[in-house]
């Protein structure tokens, strides 16, 4: 088992980076109801990040003053929003994994309290995303095409979710994903060579840009309180 700090960073960074990504949609979503839902999910994730990072140190110092090599989030959550289908694909694949992972964490000594609170939120995120996969997969030719492209884009990053301790979750996750794809009338994307590295700090090029934006004020005015 990894030290508590390392585990807290993984959990916190996953939530933080996905929360940051989803908040980019605010004011720009395809309809008002979606705008509210995505902001709400982002808000849950920022709250989780604050709690998990708090177990590793000062959450603000960790969020705003680390560089890429020290972030421990998976590559999936840092992928750009793309179109709405790509955003849905990312949330669908990640939240279904996160829900299972948090469920198992509910009984842990270190993180049980946070996991018990967060798992309820994430169960909703997974359901919300799954419903959109079905809507877009079943909707029109265009939405189906975009949903397939979104899942294809994100699929390469899913093996990373099951590294190390998380390996036993794979079977249950596969079954959940397949059930939703079945309802949506979509095929499971083809497996390709996994892209890994996020848990070791080797990220995609996208993370640096995300951090540049997120950390701007803290970097520009060192030592100020906000």
């Amino acid at each position, binding site marked *: 088992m990894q030290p508590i700090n390392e585990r807290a960073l993984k959990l916190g960074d996953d939530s*933080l980076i996905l929360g*940051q990504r989803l*908040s*980019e949609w*605010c*004011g*720009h*979503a*395809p*309809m*008002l*109801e*979606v*705008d*509210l839902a995505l*902001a*709400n999910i*982002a*808000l849950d994730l*920022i*709250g989780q*990040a*604050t709690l998990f*990072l708090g177990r590793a140190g000062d*959450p*603000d110092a960790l*969020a*705003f003053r680390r560089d890429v090599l020290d972030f421990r989030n998976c590559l999936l959550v840092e992928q750009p929003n793309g*179109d*709405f289908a790509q955003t849905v694909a990312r949330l669908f694949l990640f939240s279904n994994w996160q829900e299972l992972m948090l469920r198992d964490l509910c009984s842990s000594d270190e993180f049980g309290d946070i996991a018990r609170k967060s798992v309820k939120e994430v169960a909703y995120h997974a359901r919300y995303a799954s419903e959109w996969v*079905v*809507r*877009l997969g*079943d*909707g*029109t030719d*265009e*939405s189906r095409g*975009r949903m397939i492209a979104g899942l294809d884009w994100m699929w390469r990053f899913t093996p990373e979710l099951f590294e190390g301790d998380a390996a036993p979750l794979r079977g249950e996750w596969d079954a959940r994903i397949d059930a939703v794809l079945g309802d949506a009338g979509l095929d499971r994307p083809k497996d390709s060579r996994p892209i890994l590295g996020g848990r070791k700090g080797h990220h995609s090029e996208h993370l640096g840009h995300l951090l540049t*934006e*997120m950390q*701007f*004020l*803290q970097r520009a*005015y060192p*030592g*100020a*309180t*906000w």
Partner: protein
Amino acid sequence: MYTTELEKQRMASAQEDPEKLAEFDARVAADDFIEPKDWMPEAYRKTLIRQISQHAHSEIVGMLPEGNWITRAPSLRRKAVLLAKVQDEGGHGLYLYCAAETLGTSRDEMVEALHSGRAKYSTIFNYPTLTWADIGAIGWLVDGAAIMNQVPLQRTSYGPYARAMVRICKEESFHQRQGFEIMMTLANGTAEQKRMAQDALNRWWWPSLMMFGPPDDNSPNSAQSMRWRIKRETNDEIRQRFVDATVPQAEALGLTVPDADLKWNEAKGGYDFGAIDWEEFYAVVRGEGPVAKERMKARTKAWEDGAWVREAALAHAAKRAQRMAAE
């Protein structure tokens, strides 16, 4: 957020049944709420649709200047609070569109009117948010102004609008407090933070005073709206109350209100303040605000880019209904 009367169109003076009209006028004068199924004069309906949809559009367009800083909020707490606030604005937009729909219009029609430039929204959102202090200033001044405008609307004569306003006012007062708290943190912070806070006050003060709408002697629809109790106080009355409440807050922050003519008037028990640049106000109403084009472009882009999503949702719902019927 709030928008006030911005369009100078003449009230339609359709021929209404005098008996029904008299009954309606009596109910309004007795402070009864008018409900969606009740008879109402056509001009009352049109005025309300215009005002409520302007208000809804203001909430939605108002998500953009603040949304501009969500991804750059300086701490996790500030990020969460700002996300929650902007989400509240979206929620207000939703209730208000629903309230307007009870008068026989549709959300698609209202959105189309916004995008085509026929419908207006509050002039305040056509100014840019340049620094983090603007998020504080918007909460403090713009939401502060919104509360002043909206508290009387909780007693507006149209029931669904009044009830939406009760909930909205509660949330706006939280927004105002968080804005003031941002300003306080900055005003007590480093020299650079103080500069940011003062600069934000300098830029947002006058546009905030303009939010109450044109002066009473040039507010064409006010008298009728007051009679109908859609409006309960005049623009200038509410503006004065805002100045009187806000100047001491600026003093408490150690910031200077950018108005050389501002001084306490003992006789009237309120502040005298300098002349508002109404030419700027009318230019912004006409769509010539500094970032008006960017705001409309962002709204139209979101709407057009999302068309395929809305179509897919409808197509899926129809297919599902068909499948259920076939089973």
